[in-house]
């Protein structure tokens, strides 16, 4: 069953620390995707609002912005730089980080009802 989750709930489920976007926590999302390859996010993702990744560089935030995503979760305890957080803040993107590994983080959100990644039609 597909459910809509508030970003606040995602933070709670992943036991994540919020780094920016406090004012966006009540925003509702219904889908997520995960990748360490931004090329693939740009190529295959469509209408996913949350990106889970273990990659840390400013292009993660830019990719999220290009794809109109609302939230980036850094897994495996990865910590984005202050510049990245600032970039996300200026784009209205929520950033958090979680100690969970990618598999666990994805499984947790999927079990909570978030839709998986639809592959974009060509």
């Amino acid at each position, binding site marked *: 069953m597909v459910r809509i989750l508030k970003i606040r709930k995602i933070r709670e489920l992943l036991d994540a620390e919020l780094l920016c976007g406090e004012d966006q926590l009540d925003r509702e999302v219904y889908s997520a995707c995960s990748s*360490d*390859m*931004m*090329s*693939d996010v*740009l*190529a295959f993702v469509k209408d996913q609002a949350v990106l889970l*990744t273990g*990659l840390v*560089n*400013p*292009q*993660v935030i*830019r*990719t999220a*912005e*290009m*794809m*109109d995503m609302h939230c980036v979760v850094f897994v495996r305890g990865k910590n984005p730089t202050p*510049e990245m957080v600032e970039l996300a803040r200026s*784009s209205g993107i929520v950033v958090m980080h979680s100690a969970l590994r990618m598999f666990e983080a994805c499984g947790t959100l999927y079990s909570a009802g978030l839709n998986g990644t639809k592959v974009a039609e*060509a």
Partner: protein
Amino acid sequence: MTDAGVNFHFDVDGDDFSSAGAASVEVKKHLRQLGFPPEVIRRVAIAMYEGEINMVIHANGGTADVLVLPDEITMVLRDQGPGIADVSLAMQEGFSTARDSIRSLGFGAGMGLPNMKKYTDTMEIETELGKGTKIVMKVKV
């Protein structure tokens, strides 16, 4: 916006990977302000972002010019990089000449050019080995 459209010019810095994409973000903001539909804005932004990343990865930067007309958005990307040896090969999904160091940054999966074509209505590539590459992409509104 007048019938003559609006022009934007950007220099893409080839030495700074972290700033790659800044021009695409700017274009996205401008298009939003001009009131274009979100799907059109997203297609333009992704295609241009991929182009910018390509210029930084392969060509030590270049320039991007965007002409915005009410019914069509044209992006012209120019670089003075090494050129593309085999364009049809480069257009294949998964083919990449990017170094491993680029892959570790999350790019170089061989999806850039195919993605640019996918998200635009037309894409033309002029390239010459040792001289550079010019790519013209159009998105109809």
